[in-house]
């Protein structure tokens, strides 16, 4: 077989994108018309590749729906939500936490949820190095930890909440008294790398974040706690989107689940497929967002 140490299929994302250059490659959205759909994409890998992917998937969606589908890249979730609010985008790819905020503030509507590893959910975990001697959450008292980002369900809120559930501190705001130091590393991979390299004692990150490490590093780390399921990333629509357009779009997206069309999933972040979203599935995220003071 061979080259095993060189062949990482399950693989891994990048910390370092051509980030400083990517903002120049963003192109401005135009206001929507009735016979077109504007999709907002969040750049989470090589932005240049994303732009190439968008061309492929929007053409396919245009062919499927009979409506001109255009795509554009936003700088982050906040910009995508802003685009939904002002009508620059009709539909956006989105995380669960940004969705519940957008739902409350601008009436965004859940359409579809991504399937990964056979489920429309995943978890948050606390990872440590196997040789650290850390076996439980309590062992992390007085230690250092890296999270991904303060507005991240699996990269911050759910992992941090594990400590609250374990009774190690009462509120998320008490974390500062428990840890020696906590960091926001900027993303899943940065937090995992900081832990694997020994810069911090633990990382609070997504269930599959160990796949962001090298194969050797993956064998050297372990998860010591796992959160309840978190609804997976999703596709949402702006308030007031034409019902006919929305239905055409959803039908086309669900057609990606067929063997004939599965190849196109690689052009939209590569999930295994999509299912229709159920807004009740997000109650846990809403509750946690309230607990963290992100929602009233």
């Amino acid at each position, binding site marked *: 077989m061979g080259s095993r140490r060189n062949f990482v*299929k399950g693989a891994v994302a990048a910390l370092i994108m*051509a980030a400083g250059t990517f903002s120049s490659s963003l192109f401005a959205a135009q206001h929507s018309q009735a016979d077109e759909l504007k999709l907002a994409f969040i750049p989470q890998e090589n932005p240049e590749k994303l732009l190439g992917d968008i061309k492929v998937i929007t053409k396919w969606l245009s062919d499927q729906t009979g409506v001109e589908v255009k795509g554009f890249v936003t700088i982050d979730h906040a910009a995508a939500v802003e685009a939904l609010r002002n009508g620059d985008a009709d539909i956006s790819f989105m995380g669960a936490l940004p969705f519940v*905020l957008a739902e409350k503030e601008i009436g965004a509507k859940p359409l579809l949820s991504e399937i990964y590893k056979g489920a429309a959910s995943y978890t948050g975990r606390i990872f440590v190095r196997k040789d650290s001697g850390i076996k439980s959450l309590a062992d992390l008292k007085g230690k250092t930890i890296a999270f991904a980002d303060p507005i991240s369900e*699996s990269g911050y809120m759910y992992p941090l909440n594990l400590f609250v559930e374990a009774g190690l501190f009462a509120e998320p705001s008490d974390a500062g008294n428990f840890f020696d130091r906590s960091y926001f590393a900027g993303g899943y*991979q940065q937090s995992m790398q900081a832990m694997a390299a020994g810069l911090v004692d633990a990382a609070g990150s997504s269930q599959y974040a160990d796949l962001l490490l090298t194969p050797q590093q993956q064998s050297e780390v372990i998860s010591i706690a796992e959160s309840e399921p978190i609804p997976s990333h999703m596709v949402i629509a702006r308030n007031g989107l034409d019902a006919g357009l929305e239905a055409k779009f959803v039908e086309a997206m669900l057609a990606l689940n067929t063997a004939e069309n599965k190849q196109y999933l690689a052009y939209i972040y590569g999930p295994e497929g999509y299912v229709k979203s159920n807004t009740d599935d997000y109650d846990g995220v809403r509750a946690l967002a309230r607990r963290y003071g992100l929602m009233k």
Partner: protein
Amino acid sequence: MRSFLLALWLCLLPGMVQATALKEAPWLPEAAAYRLSLFMGNLSPVPWNKLRDSWEQPAPGAAPATPAFELISAPQRDAVDAALKAEDRQAFFQAVTRVIAEQMLESLNASEAALGTAEARQHMLNAQGFYRAFADGIQAGDKKAFSRLGLAWLEMSSALGTEGLLGAGKNAANPAQFKQAKATIAEYVLANYGTKSFSNRAKLTPIPESVVKSGQPVALPVTLPPGSNIANQKQLPLLVLQFESAGGDETELPLVAYGDMLFDSPEIFGSPARDLGMTCSTCHNRSDVNRELFIPGLSSHAGGLDVDGAFFAPMFNDRRDDHIDTPSLRGIRFTAPYGRDGREASLRRFTRNVIVTEFAGAEPTPYMLDALMAYMREFDFLPNSKIDRQGRLTEQASAAAMRGESLFNQPFDGMNGKSCASCHVPEQNFRNGQIYDIGSDEPPFPGGTPMAFDVPTLRSAKFSAPYFHDGSLPTLARVVDWFNTTKDLGLDENARADLTAYLEAVGDADEPYQVFEGKETEFRLAFDELTTFATTLNTLLPMKDKANIKVLVETVAPDLKADASTMKNLSAKSEVYQLANLLHAVGIAVANDKWADADANWQAFQALQNEVDERMY
């Protein structure tokens, strides 16, 4: 979740360095050009034109695909350009190193100026993109600084603050914390990479100047330059082993299984190939080729490389920039002589040559060569129902291919009255075992004798593009065009299309690629192979063969761990690690002459393998 599940990149970054450049995250254009400069600057002779291309053209592995020269200041460009013109290696190193340091500092300043906005993070990520070009050198040469700087990056990231989402989760930036962290990084980078004078560098590396100046030895892990790809071909070729297709079981053929393991083992090579995890099958995926293999500076295009240059085995450096297209090994027992120039009649001697002179391995033992021969002699061509046993087309071939068959057998004046079939003899697997100068290479000097090349088989050739010894012709149609032009065959467009259709028919296959479905995953394929390799312990342990057990364990245990990361069934990942650890324990026991312990661990391995087998996908 999405941000890693969708991306198929692995990168070198602050906090992580490893020997093998896997599928990397794209590099910033200037950082890519810098790393290419280090790699190619260490080749001998230095390929100055390629170095210039690295800065003037979009660098491989960079995103966006913008030439680095377009992104740096005029004084920076002038300094690099002057060093390139002077072909002054030290001056070039100094100029390009300073460029990256200065670019990083500029990005840090921009990030600080933008604190409190989303742009601050983008500038900081840019700064990290430049830092990445130095990170492995710092980690190898100055571990304390590497940790200190790593923490400073974390501090800086945490100090950026966030504008939140629709007002929620807004955190103010911490300018003082940012400034302090920035100073930690900037001072170090300026002192070690932005300095006015650098020590003379016998080898161009990103090791910090202070460490180089101190004279302390540094073990810098081997890396390949941006744009390198030594991962397996995405469409994995189907492996056809004669005994297996006839219903045999490799676990009952220990010599073949051991040879299979060696074919997949970096342990038989020397550094740097071994350190990079390269094996026979890195280039010859599943006995065929790896059409995607590419190393900037060594490969003129994907599918091959210069195997006798300065990088892999400097002692055998022929100082020629001579890319060789990787030949398929399908049906290797039927295709002597070996080497593109047919220089070796013996596959055994040729294999030894590859291990020792091309990839700097230690002299293989007779047992190792016996095993490799036993394995490689099982390689067969891909079954192809379009040709019969005599190499004639069957009724499954197209009409165009049938017309092409006549042309293939037709004598041409431009080929001294010979036909294509004169050399590519259908009943001899479309080759004749001879070497010829057909004009595909230039003489080494005016009046010199040009190289002659082995007649390649056409069987299974449809899947091993590009063609010719240097891979200069990308398709079979271009091969036909080449012969038509250089041999004045006088074939019109239709005739050339027919001849191409014939070549594609004889080179075709009923099933060219490995199919993965459901639980038949790439991991499962690898797992079956690795556990088959391990069965050679049934032979080696009773023989108390310490040397070969060591090679086996050092190949299979790390590969099991590495492959675990590719599992679909991630819940069983830890069980693969357990298997790897048991195998590792066998190796330790054998090394210490504790044969009973070795047997016990091997038994435990087999018991666990049986227990977890269904979950291995």
